């Protein structure tokens, strides 16, 4: 794993959004890899920069600083025509399947459009491919001529996934792809993504605020807070031996986290504004273990054990 080039290599990626007053520091100096066929969960609360990070990984938006390499090719240096050719390898599924499908286009036409955008296929071939895509996501040819309004939320998300799969990508970013769905439907879509990911060896960046879904689908997970990585670890390690106080608080705050009332590590206050993040460790203003040193320097990511990194200077804690 170490020897091969990772499928996605993100280094020092940073994105600030200008506005009135100081810029919004949405993503600040984030580095990580995703291997071929690997699922990286990205978890954090609103304003942590997880959606911006997903868009940066696909270069749907330009970074303020830092680089993204896909299979060894520097995406951030590519000119638009070559970037467009690269796009087929990298696709995205969004949160709201109601907003991401054209209501005036039949599902079949939407899929044919996606298929023909990347490959010069004849009408019949394109149609066959579109039907095959529908079948892959658990729908069938009978759904081909229907409009999005005829489908339930879960079915629409299946269609959005089929569309993303049209160019046979190697990397998929799913941004809160199941968050708008009822739990009974969530499970269906998560299982679908997981089986497609396994079947095609897709690499997946699965962005969610929901720790229970992240746990089911991910091989590794990265915890973000105010644009910075707090912790990154193999999934079992992260959930059974979380090392960063924020991860611990997040796990315990999850409903039914097993701890009730006073035993919980309850965070005070709310997330500060990303246009005025605290100095040093961005989490220190809500951290029950913060000490004076936490305000001084931004803590670097350090290995707790192989593959398990945390950005916290308090090595003396057992939480």
């Amino acid at each position, binding site marked *: 794993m170490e020897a091969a080039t990772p499928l996605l290599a993100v280094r020092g990626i940073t994105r600030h959004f200008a506005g009135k007053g100081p810029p919004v520091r949405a993503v600040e100096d984030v580095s990580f890899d995703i291997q071929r066929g690997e699922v990286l969960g990205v978890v954090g609360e609103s304003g942590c920069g997880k959606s911006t990070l997903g868009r940066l990984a696909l270069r749907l938006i330009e970074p303020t600083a830092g680089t993204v390499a896909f299979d060894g090719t520097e995406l951030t240096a590519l000119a638009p025509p070559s970037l467009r050719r690269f796009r087929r390898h990298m696709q995205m599924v969004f949160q709201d399947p109601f907003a991401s499908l054209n209501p005036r286009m039949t599902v079949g036409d939407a899929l044919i459009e996606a298929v023909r955008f990347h490959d010069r296929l004849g009408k019949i071939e394109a149609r066959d491919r579109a039907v095959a895509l529908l079948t892959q996501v658990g729908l069938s040819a009978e759904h081909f001529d229907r409009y999005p309004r005829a489908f339930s939320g879960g079915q629409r998300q299946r269609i959005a996934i089929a569309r993303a799969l049209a160019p046979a990508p190697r990397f998929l970013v799913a941004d809160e792809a199941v968050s708008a769905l009822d739990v009974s*439907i969530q499970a269906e879509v998560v299982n679908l993504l997981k089986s497609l990911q396994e079947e095609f060896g897709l690499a997946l960046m699965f962005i969610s605020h929901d720790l229970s879904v992240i746990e*089911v689908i991910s091989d590794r997970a990265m915890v973000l807070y105010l644009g910075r990585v707090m912790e990154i670890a193999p999934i079992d390690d992260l959930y059974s031996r979380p090392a960063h106080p924020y991860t611990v608080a997040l796990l315990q705050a999850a409903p*039914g986290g097993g701890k009730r009332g006073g035993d919980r590590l*309850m*965070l005070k206050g*709310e997330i500060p504004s990303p246009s005025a993040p605290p100095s040093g460790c961005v989490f220190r203003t*809500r951290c029950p273990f913060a000490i004076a040193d936490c305000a001084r320097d931004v803590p670097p990511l350090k290995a707790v054990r192989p593959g398990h990194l945390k950005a916290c200077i308090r090595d003396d804690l057992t939480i």
Partner: protein
Amino acid sequence: MPGGKGSALPELDGQQPVLDVKDLKTYFPTEAGIVRAVNGVSFVVREGETLAIVGESGSGKSVTGLTIMRLLGRSGAEIAGGEIWLTRSDGGRVDLAQLPEAAMERLRGSEIAMIFQDPMSSLNPVFPVGDQIAEPLRLHKGLSRRAARAAAIELLDLVGISDPARRVDTFPHQLSGGMRQRIMIAIALACEPRLLIADEPTTALDVTVQAQIVALLRELQIHRRMAMIFVTHDLHLVGDVADRVAVMYASQVVEEGRVADVLSQPAHPYTRALLSCIPRHQQGHARRRMTPIPGTMPSALTAPSGCRFHPRCASAEDRCVAGIPSLESIAPERTTRCVRWREIWP
């Protein structure tokens, strides 16, 4: 209690429950036909306890809350049957289903209060939050401007807002989502209601803030011996906030009981299925698969015959299609609407 009429939980220790809902029906007339959003729902809520109503979208859980508050508004929905008995703080009982609007208005905000998912759309953007907390106090309790302001500051402190004397003059847009929800709680609690209905109050909030708000609501509810109905889609959250839970599916209650019992030994296949949809972290080993419920929730227009869950139920058999199962009492404080409960429970 067979027939599903009335609650299987009669007045315990001789005390009247704060709320006693009997066979409630709320219908929406639509062009496509009558939508039976709430269809024969019964439950009680006692003083000092929280009842959670859990269900997915379209289950009727929110309409149940709105019906009790008589906030069906211009939706065209009507109470088509049933009773909603509220025991007032003076001990008198009124049926909210029959109450004229003027009398209802006097109860709203004083005896019963409600908070919603989105505090921004419930707060008035052009008034300082202090005025909005003071309003029910002036309206229902006849407090002077000065006294109401002092009470508003105290309430802000109660709901955990720091520097309340300054925050009383801020506007909703200056506050975070969690703080706005705290303001809504302050408004709701201003007149010390007997019953608080909280409709998905933490769904729009981040998980660490959700934990704070849930803990606050629970603490206030216990401390004030208030009755609370907590409406949510999140079965796991129920364990953190409620004493008892009623699970709703397709406009009906399908199971009710004490939270620990229902979560550990569900007696209805829907509750079981819902629990297995959501993987719960177990120390030491990650569960790698979620179990979806096949199919979708039937629309309230085209409810299937017999048990409404039977088309999606793994344990369904012929008799499940025959008639609507009644909400049967299977143990003290425990009901289920499944003809096969003896075979699947405990």
